[in-house]
């Protein structure tokens, strides 16, 4: 045993093994990397990318200005200024909606918190900018992201399900209303 080890160290046995391994990879050229900007890796379905604000299919904003996303956000990315819809005192909307994406950690808690599913996480991730201030997004920019990332839009809540119209809330397992 000792002799075997001695001979092995004499002929650089372990180094030869390692070199065999590298040569195997050299001869079987199968790269696992992608030429990134040209070829992009398919992202998983639930990828949490750039945040965007969504609209209904009649181009009205989903957001009702409830501030729940602001409350849910752990890094205080979101700032919502809520206001009444002019002429419709029962409805509210977000007059201002700003996101400071320099702080965002893409946890998706705002999306979960939203009662009307007004926020969505797109598959966009190439948001490198030269100026940090370009990452302070206002409502128009967020809506634009939502528009291009989610071209399929939902109907207004009151048209989705007869029950939802009463609650203005989209619970999944909402009990059937009895008339």
């Amino acid at each position, binding site marked *: 045993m000792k002799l075997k080890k001695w001979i092995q160290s004499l002929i650089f046995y372990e180094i030869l093994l390692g070199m065999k391994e590298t040569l195997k990879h*050299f001869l079987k050229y199968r790269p696992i990397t992608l030429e990134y900007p040209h070829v992009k890796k398919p992202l998983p379905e639930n990828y949490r990318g750039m945040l965007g604000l969504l609209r209904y299919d009649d181009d009205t904003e989903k957001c009702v200005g409830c501030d729940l996303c602001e409350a849910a956000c752990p890094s205080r990315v979101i700032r919502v200024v809520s206001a009444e819809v002019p002429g419709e005192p029962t409805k509210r909307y977000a007059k201002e909606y700003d996101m400071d994406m320099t702080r965002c950690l893409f946890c998706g808690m705002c999306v979960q918190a939203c009662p009307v599913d007004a926020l969505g996480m797109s598959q966009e991730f190439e948001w490198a900018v030269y100026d940090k201030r370009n990452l302070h997004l206002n409502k128009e920019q967020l809506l634009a992201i939502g528009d291009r990332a989610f071209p399929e839009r939902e109907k207004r809540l009151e048209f989705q399900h007869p029950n939802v119209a009463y609650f203005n809330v989209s619970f999944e397992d909402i009990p059937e209303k009895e008339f």
Partner: protein
Amino acid sequence: MFETSIKLALTLSQIGAVMGVVLLTVAVLTLLERKVLSWMQDRMGPMEVGPYGVLQPVADGLKLFFKEDIIPAGANKILFSLAPIIVLVPALIGFAVIPFGPNWTIDVLGVEFKPFVISDINIGVLYILAFTSIGAYGVILGGWASNSKYSLLGGLRSAAQLISYELNVGLAIVGVLLLSGSLSLVEITEAQAGGFWNWFAFDPLPFPQFIAFVVFLIASVAETNRVPFDLPEAESELVAGFFTEYSGMRFAFFFMAEYANMILVSCMSTVLFFGGWHAPFPFLQAPGNFVWVTGIFWFTVKVYFFLFLFFWFRATLPRLRYDQLMRFGWKVLLPIALGNVVVTSLLAYIFPN
């Protein structure tokens, strides 16, 4: 006067051709190394410039050429600019004695001219060893003149390493010199004519120099500061070692010198141990006047094999620790090289060819 000018013109054109090939090989090697390394590591390597990235050396060269040349504050300006030249010139000058084809002497307008070696001096091996040692001065001076602790540490490490391993290179060659009876690289090549069984690495009588070849290979990897002996430029410890502070063309000089040294060492292994331009089997050699075609072909193949070996080592082996390097050089390689000299000389005395 006429003869002198003819001789000058011939020699200059020959030097130009050899330098051109060497520098071209350096450019090719920069790409080849990245490609080989990345293939071994399951990557693609450079793919952007040209088809499959083949024009990458051009892009690299242009980039380095147009980079700002920074001399750090507190640096010794004269030595700082001298160091890259001291490193590069000895690396290139060694090719003057490398024979890359048959030892012919042709007569051009009454001037004797050897087309396949720039100058066949009878102490060729000594000449190369002497000049490669001068390259170490450039490394040390560059490290010292940069006024940076990383550079200084890299330079000092390089000095210690070169002194330790130069000795092993020299002693490993002694066996070959004993067998061939000459210091001229042309005559050493001539002594290995015939098939691969006549090459000194495999020559059964009086004693195969394969052990000496392994010692020479390891020591020459250490001398060119390549992985696994790249302590002078250890990226993870010393940023870039002795050329940390260099930028632009000066950095390119160090870079070219490293690759030129690799080519030189590969040429030396080819000439000393692997029969130079001789084909492994006699029937693979073109007959008569066309022997130089296969000669240059086989020489290139062998040199590129050794260059590939350098990249292969780099892809496989981790860096040695400093004490391991010193222990390996002095306690392992040196006794083996000395033993090889003793055994070879005894056997060469008992069984003279």
